[in-house]
Structures are given as C-alpha cells and as structure tokens.
C-alpha cells in the first residue's frame, strides 16, 4: 500500500469514479519525433481527452515492446532525447497543467545510470507522479520501487495473464496509484485482447486490491478501447498513437503539419468512445 500523500493519480481516479466513467490513459514516447513536436503533443493530450499521460522514456533495448514503440524510441534517441530532457519536458508541461497525472514509463538502465536518488528528486520536482519500469519485478523492489514510494512517487506495477493468484499479492504489495493489467502475453501493440477475458482478470485483481486497474497492450481502436474500458477503471492506448506519429512524418522522418493534429484526432476519438460508458 502507499505510504505517501496522494498524487495526482489517485485524485484523478477518484474524480473519474465520481463522474461514473472509465478513464483514458495515453502513451506517447518522449522526444518522438523531436523535442518540440513531442512537447506540443504532450500539451495537447489533456485537451483531446487523455485522463492520465504515460510518457515513454526511450531506451535502445526495449525488451517488452513491439515494433511500433521500438521505432518511436529509436526516432527519439536519434533526435537526441535523453532522460534529463524527458524530465525537463514534464517540468515545462507542468507550467500550464497542474492536474493531469504524468507517469514515466520505460526501462531501468537509463534511471540507474542517471542515479536513483537524483532521478527521484528531479522527477518529483518536475511534477512526475508515477513510474512504470518494465524490467523491475517485485523481486527487485529495493532498486527503485521502495525509494520511489519514499520519495512520494507512485510505483505502478504491471500484472499479467501469467501472474497467478499466488503471486498477485507480491505484485500488488508495493504498487501505488493504479495497477496496470497487461491484457495479453506478449509485447506492446501485438495481439488484440479479448474483452471478456480481460474483464474477468480485472475482477480477479480487484479481489486483491482497492487500487484502480488500467488495462493496456494491444488496444488500438476506439471500439476496442470502449470494449476494454467497460470492464476496467481505465484503458491504455500507446502503439496506435505512436503509429500516427510515424505515419505523418515526411520522407526524412521529420514531423509535418499533420503530426500533432493526427495524434489529437485519435485521442479525441478514443476519449469519446470511452466516455460513452456510464456507471
């Protein structure tokens, strides 16, 4: 359980519960395709209907990601994105938006090299609310999870179809903010999840925790988002959004006039679909 003061994440999920609807969590990669465009996208997400923002921290070797997010990370790295720049992006975002939760999502090595203590202090100061670090299971909680909780950041754990009832308590033990249920066994953006199976899995997790459950991996269209959100507290869409970025680039890989509006349009459609669900 969390020990620190509530973050924007719990405030936002409480508000969604009040509104009686599920939330939309959007993932974009920081620095994709360049710093300026990426910041513009970040700033536009809340207005387009994103309730929670996951900001991908690029890494050269994203073991759990499919081709779309791998490519987005490489585009960002090629553009010179670093963890320091990603933290600075959140800082700039916070000048205008103090309500939308921002979660950094990535892999441990860039954080480890930045230095855990320094990273937590800088991220917290910039207005980051939570962390999802794919390659840190509960077995490695001493590395970042426990220090993050102590620093007042939510550590959001992934639960997967292979996480059985015996293991679930260990996975949930130090999870804070929300639980991210990975709807498929596989990499991001790969298979299409089965909404009924997902709803059953969410119910199973909820039997073990009071935390909200967001569901992601493989959710692409407004229709799928609606179907998955119906059985969860929120739905996460990532690969489909970074694919819009890719499709709107020019031949040299630079952003075009269609990049920002393209992402905004898909987020709006997703938000509209998710908001048709009333509880």
């Amino acid at each position, binding site marked *: 359980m969390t020990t620190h003061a509530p973050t924007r994440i719990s405030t936002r999920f409480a508000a969604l519960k009040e509104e009686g609807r599920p939330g939309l969590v959007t993932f974009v990669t920081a620095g994709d395709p360049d710093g300026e465009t990426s910041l513009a996208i970040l700033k536009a997400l809340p207005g387009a209907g994103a309730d929670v923002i996951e900001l991908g921290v690029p890494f*050269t070797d994203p073991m759990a990601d499919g081709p779309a997010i791998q490519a987005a990370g490489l585009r960002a790295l090629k553009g010179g994105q670093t963890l320091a720049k990603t933290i600075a992006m959140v800082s700039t975002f916070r000048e205008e938006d103090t309500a939308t939760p921002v979660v950094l999502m990535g892999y441990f090595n860039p954080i480890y090299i930045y230095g855990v203590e320094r990273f937590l202090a800088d991220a917290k100061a910039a207005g980051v609310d939570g962390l999802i670090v794919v*390659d840190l299971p509960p077995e490695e909680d001493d590395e970042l999870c426990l220090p993050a909780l102590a620093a007042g950041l939510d550590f959001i754990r992934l639960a997967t179809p292979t996480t059985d009832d015996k293991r679930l308590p260990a996975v949930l033990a130090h999870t804070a903010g929300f639980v991210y249920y990975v709807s498929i066994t596989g990499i991001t953006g790969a298979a299409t999840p089965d909404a009924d199976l997902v709803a059953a899995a969410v119910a199973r997790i909820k039997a073990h925790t009071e935390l909200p459950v967001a569901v992601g991996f493989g959710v692409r269209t407004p229709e799928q988002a609606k179907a998955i959100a119906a059985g969860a507290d929120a739905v996460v869409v990532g690969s489909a959004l970074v694919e819009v970025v890719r499709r709107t680039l020019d031949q040299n890989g630079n952003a075009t006039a269609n990049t920002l509006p393209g992402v905004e349009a898909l987020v709006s459609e997703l938000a509209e679909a998710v908001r048709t669900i009333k509880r």
Partner: protein
Amino acid sequence: MTALNSYRTGPDFRGHFGIHGGRFVAETLMPLILELEQAYEAAKADPAYHAEMAGYLTHYVGRPSPLYFAERLTDHLGGAKIYLKREELNHTGSHKVNNVLGQILLARRMGKGRVIAETGAGQHGVATATMCARFGLKCVVYMGAVDVERQAPNVFRMKMLGAEVVPVQSGSRTLKDAMNEALRDWVTNVHDTFYCIGTVAGPHPYPAMVRDFQSIIGRETREQMQEMEGRLPDSLVACVGGGSNAMGLFHPFLDDSTVEIYGVEAAGRGLDTHEHAASIAGGRPGVLHGNRTYLLMDDDGQITEAHSISAGLDYPGIGPEHSWLNDVGRVTYLSCTDREALDAFQLLTRLEGIIPALESAHAIAKVVELAPKRPKDHLMVVNLSGRGDKDVPQVAEILGTSLGA
C-alpha cells in the same frame, strides 16, 4: 584485496554475484523464471537427470574432450608449456553443446515442446538446432541480420537441422538484438516455450545454470592435468563474450589460489576507438537482458553497439559472475584486437594444424603474449572453445585470398 574463503558459492538466493546478476525481467516472464529455477533445482537433485546427461555427453557429444599438449606452439613461444582444451572437437564444433544438452533435457522434463534461442556466431544456434533435431523439438533461432550474413555456413546448418532461423532487423542487428527478440518471443509464447540461453548471462537462474553445465570443461581439465603432469595447471586463459566457455573452465579452479586466471575480451579495432566489445575494460555496471553487469553504454544509459571481428564476442555485455570475479580481483580480464586475433588464428593453424574459431583465437593471442614471460615448467591451459571452419570464408575475405585461387 582480501581473498574470500570461497569464490564458488555464488549466486545468492536472489541470483546476485556481488552487485551483479539479479532478475530484471518483465512481470510476464517472472513466473516462468521461477518455474525454471524450481525445475532446475529438482533436476540437479535427481541422479537420473545426471545419468541421462552423462550418457549423452559420452556417446553423443564425444566427451571427455582431449587436453592436448601444443608442442610446436610451446616451442615457438619459448616459455610456458601450453595445453589446449579441445572443446572444438565436441559434436557441433564448440563448447556450446555442453550447455544446450543440459537445458534441452530440462525442457523435456518440463514438458516444453518448443525451444527458442539467440545466437551470435551461430555456434549456440547450431548446438540448439542439433539437440532439438535429436529430441524432435520445434526450434526457432533468432540471429542478428548482420550475423546471418557473416556466418552463412552456420545458418545453412541450422536450417538443415530443421530449425527456423529468424534474421533480426531491429537495433544493431547483432547478438544483443537477437536476445531482445528471443525475449519478446518468450513473453508471447509463455506456455509451451523453453528459452535456451547460450551463455552465462540473462536473469537468474541462467548464469548459474549455464555455468554448471559448462563446468565439465574445468572438471575434466583438472583430472586430465593431474594424469598428465601430476598437478594443477598454473594458469588458465579463455575468451569472453558472454563468457560461458571461460566460466566453464574457470569455475572449478576459482578456489585454487595458485592458479592464475585470464579472461580475454574482444578489443575490436582498439579500446580507444569505441569499436570494441570489451565490457569490463570499456564499460560500466548497468542493467540489460535480465541482469546487472558491465555493459557498453553512453552517458544516458543507452546501450551502444559492440564491435568484434568475431560474431560470438560481438555483445555489449558480459556474464554477471565474470563482472563479480573482476570486481573481487580473482580473474584478470585482458583484451585482444581484431588484428591480434587474426594473427593468432593463422599462427595456431600453421603450427598445430588446428583452425580455431575467431572467438578462441582471441585467447590464443593472449597466450602468445603471456607464455613467453613464464618459465618452461609453467603449465598454461587455453580453452579452444570452437573450431574455425565457420570463419574460413570471412577470414579469406579479410586476408584477400579467394578460396578458389
């Protein structure tokens, strides 16, 4: 540095060797890794498993591999008495089969019908494809597209053996990317698939398990040296990519303080060029592929591309136990450039009639340096981890000699 009571007790129950090792994997894989650890512990305690393995090692792999006195190389260098541990004479042509046999027998015990593997030079891929053919298992090998190109003979061998070879186009298109892709496969096919890792790296229990399977190299060497010289060797030399052949030779000797131990990393075009694969000499501790270990990376923690003439050493990391052995000072890690390896490749071929793999040639190159500085009664063992047939087309191209001429 204070000597430890024993260098052979690691890892701890969480898979750590000092600060190195661990289990840095996605949650989807965590239950599989715990299941594997349990299955391996059970097999280790089962005499039937060991008996089965011993039978195949003798009759299928062809063990024990000889410990051979390299007389002409010894005379040529004029110092230490040099012995070659002939792992290249194993079935499939390298030490890789020792580990694959252990893992495939484990996969069978676990009821897994599909095996995946990553490969660099193709030696591990060939060994895996071979054992899968022998036991009728489906086999998929991930190999960087660059390596597919430079190791064509091994690609063909794997295909003949019935394996599906998937050229990996992501990232730097070499061994690290093949490992990423194998992990992505495993995360997707969790129920029927066994991931057969080829070296002493990856999440716990792989580094310890692969070391255990490879330790037969060092155990045999001890016995053979006792028979031939009536004592232990004075020094050991082996090349290190991920480091499985080296760990296999070193581990049974770690507590024998009189034995000097040298691991040889690939220095590529030179340590000062950034085009190398020497993780200890040119890297720092970080987290990749399920473990903490020395890695090549930039200041932002992004993994950089390794370079080596030898595809089997072309990896920006090293097994975590090696990283720890470096930190505690028990093993000395040296490095060898592409050029030195090529020279050693030719030297051994001419003097002993043995064509070494380019990987093993890195170890030979350091023997060329170390042996002349040792007395004639110094017993030096070098692990000849693989044969060089697979490298002949590449070497011919580099040396500018057409094979047809």
